């Protein structure tokens, strides 16, 4: 990556944050935006969440330090990200969406930018506040959450070329399909376990008899 490309890589997420519709249009037509940002975004998201659980100030930190596990945070972030992308893709391909899976993933990763940036800022701030100033912390978290949600909406609407209502409906059904996917995975897991136990028993019986 040369210097100009690197500069662009750093600057583009901020451009997405303030000009979402234009930026996602650019991502859609492959003019700007990088697929590498998916990895960066997931990692930063993970670090932001783990950082918040571990280092948020005592005044706002409601996590039980005994159950803190940053690796499971990473699994959680990846799982939710993949689920969202697949869920959204499976719904939008049925609803005449134009976006490809990789485009959805790229756009989603750009949409998450304000979220983890805000989390870092809020976590740092939370170490210097008292109980009376918790409102500032909550405010930052709320603002970045709404911001990210709006970006996600803009991403879906732009990538798939949807109208306002259709984009909202798609987002809703994406969540439904995420739940269905989780259910199917659990079902497959249970069935595979049964099959595995069957062969295990057959093997055991054979070894006992021979």
């Amino acid at each position: 990556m040369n210097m100009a490309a690197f500069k662009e890589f750093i600057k583009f997420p901020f451009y997405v944050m303030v000009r979402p519709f234009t930026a996602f249009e650019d991502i859609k037509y492959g003019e700007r935006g990088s697929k590498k940002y998916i990895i960066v975004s997931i990692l930063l998201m993970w670090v932001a969440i783990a950082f918040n659980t571990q280092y948020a100030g005592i005044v706002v930190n409601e996590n039980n330090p005994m159950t803190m596990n940053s690796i499971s945070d990473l699994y959680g972030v990846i799982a939710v990200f993949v689920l969202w992308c697949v869920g959204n893709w499976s719904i939008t391909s049925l609803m005449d969406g134009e976006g490809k899976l990789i485009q959805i993933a790229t756009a989603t990763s750009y949409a998450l930018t304000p979220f983890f940036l805000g989390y870092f800022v809020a976590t740092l701030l939370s170490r210097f506040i008292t109980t009376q100033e918790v409102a500032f912390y909550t405010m930052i978290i709320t603002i970045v959450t709404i911001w990210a949600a709006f970006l996600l909406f803009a991403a879906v609407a732009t990538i798939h070329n949807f109208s306002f209502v259709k984009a909202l409906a798609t987002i809703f059904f994406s969540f439904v399909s995420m739940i269905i996917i989780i259910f199917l995975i659990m079902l497959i897991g249970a069935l595979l376990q049964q099959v595995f136990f069957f062969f295990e028993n057959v093997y055991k019986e054979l070894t006992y008899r021979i």
Partner: protein
Amino acid sequence: MKKYIKPLISLLLAAVFAFMPAMEASARKVPYRGYSYDNMRFVNAVPARLSYIPATVIDGVDLGVGSWSSPQDVQVYEEWIYVSDTGNNRIVVFNRYGELKEDVGDNGVVTTFINNGEIDTFNAQDGLCIPRGMNRIYVCDTENRRILVFDMEFNLLGIVDEPDSDMLMDYNIFRPVKITVDNGGRMYVRVRNMFQGLLCFNDDLTFNGYFGQLPVRVSAWDLLWRRIYTREQIEKNRSFIPTEFTNVDIDEHGFIYCTNIDVYDGDRVKILNPFGTNILKNYNENRNIVGDLLLDAIAQNFMSDMGANTRSRLEDIKARPAGMYTVVDSRKGRLFTYDGEGNLLYIFGGNGSQFGMFRKATALDILKENFDEIVYNIDGLDIYRGDDVIVLDELRANVTIFEPTLYGAMINTAISLRYDGDEGHAVEIWREILRLDNNFMMAYVGIGKSLLAEGENRDAMLYLRAGNDIKYYSVAYRRYRTEVMNNSMPVVMTGLFIVIGLYYGTKLTLWILRKQRERRVEHEHGGV
């Protein structure tokens, strides 16, 4: 020499500790484990020192009066222990050394008394009350449906029968079970199956009214279901009536302490003022006064199967000096002691078959005999022994007397010093307690608050954080932040101005130099 002083002192202290009478007792095998709860946002059970240990067990056979049959109440007056031997319709009076009180009843056993010239008996009498300085004994004669008032020699002074009042409902049979009496001679009686509250009787034995009714709580969810239900379903559903009190006691100021079996979340102890309003203080969020906070704390944390996996059922309460009170959990046989601010101080006791364990602990009282005995002295600071606790077991039909260990005595003393406003000396004891048990959260908070008052904000922050007192930690932190800002502001601002000054100064100098050079160059060119 100097470096040997500290170890030497600790060695001496260790020797003193080892030969303490209270500590000697704790070297005996105690059948239950000490534990407590820390006050993190998530409920954790943590190991703690043993605060009270069983010293004596007395039952009817030891006294030579025949074994008791499901005794229901124990009361202490001065040195004498009064046990209501319910199943045998008698009251047994003895002291902690197993000696019967010879001048009452038939050599310490009261079975009969004279009522209007005739011999009368109890019938499954339950609660007793012997108020301070009144020379009276109140007995709930449950199955005879009356309350008996005696003097200290069990001569009958009066009888309270079922009050003839429109306020009482017809279907309620007047079966008084627990009683407490205030300084004015007013009786507060818990009647079996009466959910309207306590009954209050005046000193002249007339009926006064209800007292301290528990509020009924109906959720929106219940109301919604009642809309959907048919009439038959509503009739079969449980009705919305307040829960009953289980026991009552009164402290020296006349506040009435009650336990109840509230099925809802919330404090299951009420402290009622003379108007009947609840004045219980509990400053801990998510820490209701319910006995065990976890269903089975011991099993979850210390790999033991001693506790039943149930919620606590608070069966009896006793007000203690300095605003403390102790409740007994009859399901798990544990005793929980709280201070006047709702902090859990210590937990002891348990169910089992060993010496000092219970099958069904139903009542407790306080033996105050040794309260002023000084057991230890830290740098001129006295540790009082505190009061002994006596617990009645209904199924094992015995009483167990618990004595405080040094740790328990220290907590009792510290709470009593705090109650008297002697925060300074209390803090010294908190520090000693932390050396014995660094899970004792109140000590961190106590030390932290005193440091905060002294203006040691940085140290206060550390202690308050250890004690997880977010509110006071915030106060300490804000002061510390201001302090740091005040101290560093001149340096930072001066530095900033110097940096800015240097930056622009250099720029200006460079600009002047450049101008001069340009002029010179121009001059030289012009000269050519």
